[in-house]
């Protein structure tokens, strides 16, 4: 359906239909890309892969506490999405965000130090795995409450619009998140108020152990924007170039047209929901499928085949990534724990009379 008659380009656009830029008509090919660019994507994907493997290891060694959700299988999606953002653009994510933090430009050392709960961590040891935040790179938070980031991202876009700025807000979430009230309220508000926000659903087929089919009455999630006249696009999340192009298109349209968009990236979760989940609910076929769809391995073989990557170069990149991850872990390991004396530093931004600074066994009245 043509969308010209509707005020906000109503209806659902499919990845194959609606209005597309010409370069989007065909699947992007590595033949059209600069080798340098491709190698950079490959390196970033590998960095996230090795970082997360190291994270799992450190978690098992009890160096990392709490819940720990990994981006294994999501590497192509992350690199594609982060490439589409300008430095000035804002990012909100859920709790599965270590790779996004790195992709948005936070040094892996600071991400690992946060996982270790150290004061050098990106959130100074106050957030942990689920709550990475960095003002400078405009990574405005990982959020542990499913759907919690959606109203926030919408509000950030409202602030951009209020000031007449040209930044775009990207709001990442999982497939399961499209069923919570905050999804419906936020997409409605974003569309009503013409806000420059791109909602990105990472469809890894499941929320914990519940499949999309079991939780979403409309399992083709990109279509769910149509209730709000938000154009939705589905993209193969295993293909870094496809994700980059689809995301760039929507981000730039959000910027120039000042309205929200929805992107659904079809992805795979290679391991359990979190490090401690053995994912016994998965059939052997599903496990095989996830393995067969390993985005790092398939991009690697594509690059090798195209001659962009050589065995020599591959080894070089692998070594440098390994060193970077080792360095991050060493940095975290050798960083100080936050001083207990700082316990009351972050309750209020504006100091206030009679704020309680009582330790558990202290009397209420000191005298």
């Amino acid at each position, binding site marked *: 359906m043509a969308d010209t008659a509707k005020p906000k380009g109503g209806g659902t656009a499919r990845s194959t239909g609606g209005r597309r830029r010409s370069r989007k008509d065909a699947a992007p090919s590595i033949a059209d890309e600069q080798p340098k660019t491709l190698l950079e994507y490959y390196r970033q994907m590998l960095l996230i892969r090795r970082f997360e493997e190291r994270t799992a290891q450190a978690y098992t060694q009890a160096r990392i506490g709490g819940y720990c959700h990994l981006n294994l299988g999501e590497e192509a999606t992350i690199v594609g999405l982060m490439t589409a953002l300008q430095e000035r653009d*804002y990012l*909100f994510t859920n709790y599965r965000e270590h790779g996004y933090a790195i992709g948005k430009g936070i040094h892996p050392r600071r991400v690992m130090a946060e996982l270790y709960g150290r004061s050098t*961590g990106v*959130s*100074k*040891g*106050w*957030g942990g795995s689920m*709550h990475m*935040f*960095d*003002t400078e790179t405009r990574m*405005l*938070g990982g*959020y542990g*409450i499913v759907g*919690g980031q*959606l*109203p*926030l*991202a*919408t*509000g*950030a*876009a*409202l*602030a*951009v619009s*209020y000031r007449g700025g040209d930044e775009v807000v990207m709001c990442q979430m999982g497939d399961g998140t499209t069923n919570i*009230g*905050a999804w419906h*309220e*936020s997409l*409605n*508000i974003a569309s*009503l*108020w013409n806000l420059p926000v791109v909602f990105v659903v990472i469809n890894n087929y499941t929320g914990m152990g519940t499949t999309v089919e079991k939780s979403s009455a409309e399992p083709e999630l990109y279509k769910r924007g149509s209730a709000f006249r938000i154009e939705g696009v589905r993209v193969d999340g295993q293909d870094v170039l496809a994700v980059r192009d689809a995301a760039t298109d929507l981000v730039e349209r959000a910027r120039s047209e000042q309205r929200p968009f929805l992107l659904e990236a079809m992805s795979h979760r290679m391991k359990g929901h979190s490090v401690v989940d053995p994912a016994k609910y998965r059939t052997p076929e599903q496990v095989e499928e996830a393995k067969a769809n390993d985005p790092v391995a398939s991009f690697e073989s594509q690059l090798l085949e195209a001659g962009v990557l050589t065995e020599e170069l591959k080894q070089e990149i692998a070594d440098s990534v390994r060193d970077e991850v080792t360095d991050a872990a060493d940095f975290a390991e050798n960083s100080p724990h936050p001083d207990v004396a700082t316990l009351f*530093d*972050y*309750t*209020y*931004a*504006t100091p*206030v*009379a*009679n*704020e*309680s600074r009582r330790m558990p066994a202290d*009397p*209420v*009245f000191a005298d």
Partner: protein
Amino acid sequence: MSVITYRQALRDTLRAEMHRDENVFLLGEEIGVFEGSYKITEGLLKEFGERRVRDTPIAEEGFVGAAVGAAMLGLRPVVELMTINFSLIAIDQIINHAAKIYGMFGGQTSVPMVIRTPGGGGQQLGATHSQNIELFYSFIPGLKVLAPSTPAEAASMLRAAIRDDDPVLFLENLGLYNTKGEVPDGDDTVAEIGRAAVTREGTDITLIGYSRMAMVASQVAEKLAEEGISVEVVDLRSLRPLDRETIVESVRKTGCAVVAEDDWLTYGIGAEIAASIQEGAFDWLDAPVRRVAMAEVPMPYAKPLETAALPSPESLITAVHETLRAVGRRVG
């Protein structure tokens, strides 16, 4: 000095703050075209336009959360929630987000926003529309909760809330909107958050209240003075932080206390006050601390039932008399 209503004091302050700071804007249901369910924002859409006075869909979680996100980027949203009952729809954004974002991210971003909302029963609105659940928010570190009882306080405390860098739940009361009081002309005083006030000095007993019950406490004190009972009234004003020092100092002087609260007794705000008094003034207490609170039922619609369920001036007077009798100092 002018005598104006609590409603007018709120409206004047909102208008002045919007003129003072371009980052201050209002959002909420029916605040623009409809001019507010309780007409607090009357005239403001006409004066400031849709950018600054934003009508929202009925989506409390969505628009409260949007205010949090906008505040993270440095705007100063003032949200109106029609009544505190509807804040329950937004409670995830208030408690899990607004209150947590400053600490959870190691102090990297503050959330300078205000949520204005009235509590209050007594309007025959029935069970879902008559609750006083400010306790939920007063329980949460990271939030500040203010509960002014007079027009002058409403103005100076709203100013403080808007200029503060933390999320503030600003509790109003349906029963206070039409009450009048003196407000200095061209007033620009900014109340100090976290401070209670002794609004009437006395020597026999301390009466502690906030919001509507602070006003009722003052009226009761006036009445009891005619009987020769000298009541000291403490208006809490700030429910979080709680100014325990002022409460305890007063009780150390009078030796006994009655807490007047518009919420339910069990686990209520009065419970915290009573616990604080026993810890801070144990040796000065001549009688147990009494609490006057709502009957613990879903609020009924029928007028006689509703009236019976709510704390009244008479119920306060009874509690004062009985406490003084327990003290053995005076028989009312």
